[in-house]
């Protein structure tokens, strides 16, 4: 683990090989994360989430030989919201601070809840929130440490279409200026948000063309359809 990397250098890096039991998932993979959104797409079982969990320092159930360089604190957002059912939204946002034994910063937590559009819902429990609102609380929780690296493991895939787009825009706005790794199985999402797009399939990592200019991009942007077709063809070829 290295911290305090200067902005010119990659914010995080993973280099190495992963096996599930005796079967290699990928070998000699190398990925540098720079500021902006890096999207990692690929078929199920290709090891996308493993890459992300290794960067987060989370257990993977796989054997990894190699090196991971990432900040000690990362913002982490997964498909499951990981909200604790017995705690209020406010307590859930500050759970990381409580787990580290720090004083919970309620003022900042309330500000973040307001920023994700949950003003007045600070004292609600997860059961009293909708799926989209719960994922917003999870986003506020991820933002509280102001980490430079954000790791997103299909955080939008369980949401309905309208909420998904809202959450994508919200995450994009709130995570501006950070290095973001988004693992997704949705090529549309990758094109919409990615400044760089990588396909992980068959143990190989390959960069695919992303949309030029600052995201988020819409399907009406010139070149979106062609890139989407290309991405989709590569994904179907890989699956």
């Amino acid at each position, binding site marked *: 683990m290295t911290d305090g990397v200067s902005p010119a250098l990659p914010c995080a890096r993973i280099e190495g090989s992963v096996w599930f039991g005796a079967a290699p998932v990928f070998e000699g993979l190398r990925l540098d994360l720079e500021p902006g959104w890096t999207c990692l797409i690929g078929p199920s079982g290709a090891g996308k989430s493993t890459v992300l969990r290794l960067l*987060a*320092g*989370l*257990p993977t159930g796989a054997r990894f030989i190699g090196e991971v360089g990432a900040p*000690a604190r*990362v913002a*982490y957002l*997964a498909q*499951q919201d*990981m909200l*604790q*059912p*017995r*705690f209020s939204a406010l307590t859930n946002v500050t*759970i*990381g*601070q*409580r*787990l*580290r*034994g720090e004083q919970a910063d309620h003022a900042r937590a309330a500000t973040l809840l307001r920023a994700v559009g949950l003003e007045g819902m600070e004292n609600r429990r997860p059961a009293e929130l909708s799926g989209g609102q719960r994922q917003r609380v999870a986003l506020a929780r991820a933002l509280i440490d102001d980490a430079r690296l954000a790791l997103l493991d299909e955080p939008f895939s369980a949401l309905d279409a309208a909420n998904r787009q809202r959450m994508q825009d919200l995450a994009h706005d709130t995570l501006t200026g950070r290095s973001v790794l988004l693992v997704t199985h949705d090529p549309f999402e990758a094109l919409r948000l990615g400044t760089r797009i990588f396909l992980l399939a068959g143990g190989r990592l390959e960069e695919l063309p992303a949309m030029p200019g600052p995201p988020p991009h819409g399907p009406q942007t010139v070149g979106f359809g062609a890139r989407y077709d290309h991405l989709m063809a590569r994904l179907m070829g890989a699956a």
Partner: protein
Amino acid sequence: MRTVAAILLFGAVWQAVVMLTGVPPYILPPPLLVLLAGWANAGVLLANAMVTAEEVLLGLFLGTAFGVSTAVAMALSDRLRGLVRPALVVSQAVPVFALAPVLTLWLGYGLAAKIAMTVLIVFFPLASVFLDGLMATPQSTLDLARLASATRWRTLLWLRLPHALPALASGLAIAAVYAPIGAVIGEWVGASQGLGYVMLMANARSHADLMFAALLVLVALTLGLHRTAQSLSNWMAR
């Protein structure tokens, strides 16, 4: 209201069985006779119920305290869990009642042996249910602890414990029903007071009505404990 109806129905069935089978009152006395015996011996029953209640409450309190702290210690220490968990599983198969004569031999005929019996009966199911609850925290929740590099103690306090509260609640509800069994068995093996003692004495003197009256008081005591435990668990599971 439903409770009253259930009691009336139970009494009616009881009465019907007595009338239809013609069973003699020294085998199964009719409910009215039992109530009369209870009324006539109200002082004796109350005094002995107090003794049993004391044994039950102390045993329940100590058994819960030991059970909870054992489960917490085992959740915190992998080594302790590895050593003690198999024993905890095996202990479920041991008929703890069989230890009652041993406990009386060691601790005498007084309060201590009954409390020890109750503690033993409460301890094992409670510790094992609560430990299972503490260890059943979802991986996604434990990821939060990993991301924060949390200590075991803080992980327990903020993540494992809140997840295990419903398990602890159901453990307490079981314990509340088991505890009076422990106390009464302790009394059966050797005692000079308590509801179990009253039942033995009444039986020896062929006072089936008094025996049943003592049994009813015991049932009432158990139901009261169960109720209390239930409302406590509802509050905990909120």
